[in-house]
C-alpha cells in the first residue's frame, strides 16, 4: 500500500499574527513558519501504518513557493520515503490545490491520501473533501482514530455531537484531527538523512492546472479590539459585578 500525504507551510501556530497596514494581508516577513499542525498528524499516522507493515511507501507532497520544500524535508525527516514539491507562487485556493493533488494521484496511484483537516492560516477546511469529490473517492474527515483493514479503513470522526465511526473502502481520503496521534520529533541524524531522500520538483503549470484565484481578497483587517477589562479582588466582588454591572446572571 502506498500513502500520499499532503503538507502545507503556514505561519507557526504560536505566532501572534499581525495584519499589514495597507490591508492586503498579514505580515509574513521574518515570521516563523512551520508545517500546518494537523498535517504533522497526517504524516505521523502514515509513518505508523508503514511501521506496522501495512504500507510500503509514504510520499509527502507540498504545494507552494520554494520555501514550502522545508515542510517536505521535515516529513522526510520523520519517516516519509520521498517527496514532491509542486511550485506555485502566491495564494492557491483549496479548489486548485485539490486539482493539483488529483494530477499527482493519477501519476502516483496511492491507495490512501492523508492531510490535516484544516490549515490554520486560511481556516478553509476544504481540500480533502474536494479531492475526494473530484476523484469520486470516499472521504473520512476529522479523523481521531484509524484502523486499517484488508480493503478498507474504519475511521472514528470527531463531530459536534461526539464521535462517529464510518468504514471507507480503499482508495480513500482521510483528513486528520489533532487528536489522531502524537507527532514525533525529527532526530538530528534523521534530519541529515532526509537531505539525501529524493525530492521531485514540478510546476503547477506543467500539470495543466489553472491556479488563478476565484475569490478576490478585497481587504484584510484587524478584528475589533475588546475594551480592557478589570481585575476583581474576590469571588464576591465578581458575582456582584456579574449581577449588577454586566447583568448576565
Amino acid at each position, binding site marked *: 500500500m502506498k500513502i500520499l500525504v499532503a503538507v502545507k507551510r503556514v505561519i507557526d501556530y504560536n505566532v501572534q499574527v499581525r495584519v499589514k497596514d495597507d490591508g492586503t494581508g498579514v505580515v509574513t516577513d521574518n515570521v516563523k513558519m512551520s508545517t500546518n499542525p494537523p498535517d504533522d498528524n497526517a504524516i505521523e499516522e502514515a509513518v505508523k501504518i508503514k511501521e506496522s507493515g501495512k504500507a510500503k511507501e509514504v510520499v509527502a507532497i507540498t504545494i507552494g513557493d520554494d520555501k514550502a520544500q522545508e515542510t517536505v524535508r521535515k516529513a522526510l525527516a520523520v519517516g516519509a520515503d520521498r517527496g514532491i514539491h509542486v511550485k506555485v507562487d502566491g495564494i492557491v485556493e*483549496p479548489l486548485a490545490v485539490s486539482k493539483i493533488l488529483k494530477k499527482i494521484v493519477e501519476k502516483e496511484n496511492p491507495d490512501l491520501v492523508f492531510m490535516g483537516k484544516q490549515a490554520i492560516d486560511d481556516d478553509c477546511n476544504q481540500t480533502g473533501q474536494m479531492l475526494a469529490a473530484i476523484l469520486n473517492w470516499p472521504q473520512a474527515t476529522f479523523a481521531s482514530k484509524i484502523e486499517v483493514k484488508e480493503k478498507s479503513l474504519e475511521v472514528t470522526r470527531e463531530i459536534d455531537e461526539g*464521535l*462517529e465511526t464510518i468504514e471507507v473502502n480503499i482508495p480513500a481520503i482521510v483528513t486528520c484531527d489533532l*487528536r489522531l496521534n502524537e507527532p514525533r520529533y525529527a532526530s538530528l541524524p534523521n534530519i541529515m538523512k532526509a537531505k539525501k531522500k529524493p525530492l521531485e520538483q514540478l510546476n503547477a503549470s506543467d500539470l495543466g492546472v489553472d491556479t488563478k484565484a476565484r475569490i478576490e481578497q478585497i481587504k484584510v483587517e*484587524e478584528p475589533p479590539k475588546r475594551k480592557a477589562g478589570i*481585575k476583581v479582588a474576590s469571588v464576591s466582588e465578581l458575582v456582584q459585578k456579574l449581577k449588577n454591572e454586566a447583568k448576565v446572571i
Partner: protein
Amino acid sequence: MSVLLIAEHNNTDLRPFTFNAATAASKINEDLHVLVLGNKSDSVAKAASEIPLVKKVIHVDNEIFDNFTAENYTSTILKHVDNYSHIVCSANTFGKNLMPRVAALLDTSQVSDIVNVISEDTFLRPIYAGNAFATVKSTDKKKCVTIRPTSFDPAPSTGGSAEIVKSEPGDKFESSKFVKREEIKSDRPELGTARVVISGGRGMQNSDNFKLISAIADKLNAAIGASRAAVDAGYITNDHQVGQTGKVVVPDLYIAVGISGAIQHLAGMKESKVIVAINKDGEAPIFSVADYGLEADLFEALPQFLEELNKLNSIQK
C-alpha cells in the same frame, strides 16, 4: 436567482444551527429555499416550511440519507442546484464535511465560515484563528458558502407555510458505510447556543475536578466547555472543545477556568459578550480578553463562586 439552504437535522427535528443559517441565507437573497434530505423525515420538512423566511421546501426522503453522509447528500444536492445562485449551510462539522464535496463538483471555490453578508457576492470571514478578518468576493457563477452560525441570530421557527415539494434522490455512493454514532446526551443547553458557558482547562488537573464546573453550570443553566489541552489530557470528551478546531461560541457570559488562553482557544470564544477569567497566573493571556479577571486558585474560587451564587435571590436562566 435564489438561495438553497441544506438543512441539518436528525430525521425528526431541524438542528438549531439551521435557523441561524436561514437568517444568513435570506440576507444573501430573500428567495430562500430549503433542501431536506432525510429518512422518514416528514416532520423536518414541515418544520422547515414553518420558518417564515423560507419560500419553498424541497424534500427528498430515502433510506440512503439515514446517516447524513456527505457522499450520498452530494449526488442528490447536485441534481437540485440548477436554479440556484447560492448553495449554503452551517459551518459546523456537518457543513464542513459536506459543502466542499459539492463545491468541487460544481467547480466552485467555496467561501467558508462567513460571519457577515456584505452583498450577494461579498462576505466577511475570519482567517488565522480570528486574528484577521478578510472581506472576500466570489467570482464563481454558482457560489457555495458556509455560515458561522453563532454570528447570525436564529430565524423565527413558526408562522410560515411554505410549499413542500417532494423530489427524488441521486445515486447511492457504495464505497462508504456508516458504522455508529456515539452521541453524548446531556440535559444541559447545547454548547453552541447556550446563553452561559463555563469552560475548564489544563488547570482542572483531572476529569473528577470538572464536578466543580458542573455544579456551577447547573446553577447557571450553562453549557460546559473545555480547552483543547483539557480534551487532549482526557479530562472531558471532544464535543466540549472550544477553539479554532473545536466549536465557536458566542454566549452572553463565558467563564474560563484554569485556561491560559492560547490563540487557538481565544478564536473560539473571544466574541462572547462578557468574559470572566479565573486563573492563578496573573500573566495568563486569557486576562487580556476578560472583562472580569480573578487571579485566584480555582480550587478555592469555584466552591466560593457556587456559595455566592446560592446566596443570590434569583439567577437568570
